[in-house]
């Protein structure tokens, strides 16, 4: 018997047996398990910590209010350190515990998990990040880039600066520079910016910054020479505050700088202090919301009882709110799934997926949840896994973030064809077929 045939027989035997052995050991108590991939250490910790605290606080808050129709939410954190291989390990570790949904919190990890989730039948929520083409639920059945993608972000930023110039056609001949984190995250907006630059005739310059982004002297020297009209900042963690410090050093006006929604939170600007005054960033649905009802509720129900995850004063900050609303979306999807599969039952990943695909959070429901003024309605469907693209621009005044624009929505006439093309390319590479209408019903 050659080695190969031994291996083959062993593989066949094992495959047959493992199917029998590995019946999932879920269905513990009546608890809906939410795995939390977080990073509380490493270069991105200043931004990762408030996000993680927000997610955990919301689950505690839901439990304090009696769970999801009586089903308690349980959770476990796993430290990814923003590293893809660590994230994959965490995913494997936590999925065995009956995971409802994963929120990778890193574009790199999202890419890796996108390949694994369909096989494991676990949905992925990437609220405001992840791969843009996964909006197309007909190809990406298990991905949910809820509330918007980077293409939406780039589109809205261009709409905003266009408006400032007095019409988007006035961008012709202007210079826009993208300073981006040199990773899948930072590269995501490039196709859209290139598309728009062809349409409107502005000059796009791309400047990558390598991980973790503390070394940006060369990038800002280029900006100084090139003198762009606008700088878009696609940074995360220490890269944001470093960029602002460099902007101060090179004398680039901060009010011409626009960050994506991951470059517009308190940790990014606090260290720079007055230097960051006038700096703008996108606000994905919400900004800092210290006065919202949900924040008061969380303070009363969770922090008031001494169960707060982080310090009290971060409650209501931008990234904390982002974590809070990410957890809210995860929970509401389960609640929606319960409407179909039985109230008060623990949902499997597959059932929860239906909930995320049929999310219908209208303003009334959001208000009831305490998210009045924090979020705008989200409704997803088979074709649109994004649900909404609402965003505003907010500006740092040296002490806090203030909204400085109206609501925007991205221009679907540009983005839709791009999503379709990219999703088709992905499907062709993976030899997937688009989902049939019947599949959408299931």
């Amino acid at each position, binding site marked *: 018997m050659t*080695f*190969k045939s*031994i*291996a*083959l027989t*062993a*593989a066949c*035997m*094992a*495959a047959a*047996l*493992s199917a029998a*052995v*590995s019946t999932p050991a879920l269905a513990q108590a009546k608890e809906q398990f939410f795995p939390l991939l*977080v990073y*509380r*250490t490493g270069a991105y*910790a200043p931004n990762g*910590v408030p996000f*993680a605290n927000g997610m955990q606080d919301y689950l505690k808050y839901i439990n304090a209010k009696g769970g999801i129709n009586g089903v308690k939410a349980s959770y*476990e*954190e*796993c*430290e990814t*350190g923003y*590293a*893809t*291989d660590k994230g*994959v*390990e965490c995913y*494997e*570790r936590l999925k*065995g515990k009956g995971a409802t949904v994963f929120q990778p919190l890193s*574009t*790199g990890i999202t*890419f*890796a998990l*996108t*390949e*694994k989730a369909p*096989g494991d039948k676990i949905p992925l929520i990437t609220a405001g990040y992840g*791969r843009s083409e996964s909006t197309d639920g007909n190809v990406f059945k298990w991905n949910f880039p809820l509330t918007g993608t980077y293409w939406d972000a780039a589109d809205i930023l261009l709409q905003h600066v266009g408006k400032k110039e007095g019409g988007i056609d006035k961008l012709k001949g202007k210079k826009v520079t993208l300073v981006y984190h*040199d*990773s*899948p995250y930072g*590269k*995501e907006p*490039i*196709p859209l910016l290139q598309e728009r630059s062809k349409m409107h005739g502005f000059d796009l310059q791309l400047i*990558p910054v390598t*991980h973790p982004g503390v070394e940006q002297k060369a990038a800002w020297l280029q900006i100084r020479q090139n003198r762009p009209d606008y700088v878009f900042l696609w940074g995360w963690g220490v890269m944001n505050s470093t960029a602002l410090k460099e902007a101060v050093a090179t004398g680039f006006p901060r009010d011409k700088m626009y960050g994506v929604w991951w470059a517009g939170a308190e940790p990014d600007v606090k260290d720079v202090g007055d230097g960051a005054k006038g700096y703008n960033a996108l606000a994905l649905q919400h900004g800092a919301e210290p006065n919202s009802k949900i924040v008061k509720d969380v303070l009363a129900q969770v922090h008031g009882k001494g169960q707060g995850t982080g310090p009290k004063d971060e409650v209501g900050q931008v990234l904390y709110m982002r974590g809070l609303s990410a957890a809210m979306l995860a929970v509401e999807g389960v609640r929606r799934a319960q409407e179909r599969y039985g109230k008060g039952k623990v949902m499997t990943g597959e059932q929860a997926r239906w909930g995320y695909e049929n999310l219908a959070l209208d303003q009334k429901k959001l208000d009831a949840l305490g998210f009045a003024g924090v979020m705008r309605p989200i409704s997803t469907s088979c074709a649109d896994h994004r649900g909404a693209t609402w965003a505003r621009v907010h500006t740092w005044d040296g002490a806090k973030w203030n909204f400085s624009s109206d609501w925007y929505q991205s221009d679907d006439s540009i983005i839709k064809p791009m999503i379709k093309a*990219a999703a088709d390319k992905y499907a062709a*590479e*993976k*030899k997937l077929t688009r989902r049939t209408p019947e599949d959408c019903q299931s």
Partner: protein
Amino acid sequence: MLYRENGQFKTSYRADQAVFPIAQDRLAIGLILAFAIIVVPLVAPEYLFRAILIPFLILSLAALGLNILVGYCGQISLGTGAFMAVGAYAAYNFQVRIDGMPLIVSLLMGGVCATAVGVLFGIPSLRIKGLYLAVATLAAQFFTDWAFLRIKWFTNDSSSGSVSVADLKVLGLPIDTPVQKYLFCLAFLIVFAMLAKNLVRGHIGREWMAIRDMDVAASVIGIRPVYAKLTAFAVSSFIVGVAGALWGFVHLGSWEPAAFNIDRSFQLLFMVIIGGLGSIMGSFFGAAFIVVLPIVLDNMPYWFGIPIDTALASHLTFMIFGALIVFFLIVEPHGLARLWSVGKEKLRLWPFPH
């Protein structure tokens, strides 16, 4: 008592030159292989496969490759991550661009491309030695990082720079479940470990070791340094390249250049140093130490049911892991493989040590 070669007479050259001349060793290896091929797939849970065994096998393979270069030929390299990246991206390109390319062929072609790059970056080793060479191989690391981030052709024009593969098949058999992936990697590892073991005990391996121990003396007795050094680079980068391709294809499934950054190079170098320079066995020990230990440390609080802050757990993991590395290097600078062979020596005298 149990482990001694008394009475095992060799009556032919063949027997004398066997890889494992001692019968007990052959038995042990046979048992380990049987355990790895038959028992493990039957009993191990999915988490063990995906998070521990598959990374362990692939990184063992990479450490094996690096050990040939660093341990056997004495050429310190910090470009391992780069050669892994070349292997992974080359294999990806063969897979994507050529329709119907068999998986094993593209993986091996990834290794071939890594060989070419490895030899190219090995050329400076003819002039510079030691730490200076390490710095020169760093260039390979930075160059490939740059190339795979910037040159769109390599990533098939993917907008984000991240590439992915799916639908892996060997001879019509899918490589899909964790068990299949595990056996696939194991098969590669066994073949390459045999290959490496036989190379290092043949005349090529002796040339490498002669160069490592003293290159002037080696060239005086007629060993061509050019040939010896470049073959070491070639063999090493081939194995490392295949390991990189497996890492991308089988373990990650979707990857970006950051998966093969400088940290990966250091990690592999540590594996080789901690496991034991110039030892095939050491590569496995080193990989096990570096891959498995942090995960075990990380999981420890949960197993014992101690609620511990995630950040604290992760800091503790780093501290304990670092302390253990220092401890092992002080206690046994020749690595875990040396501890293993000391153990074997002791076992031969047991239970009557002099």
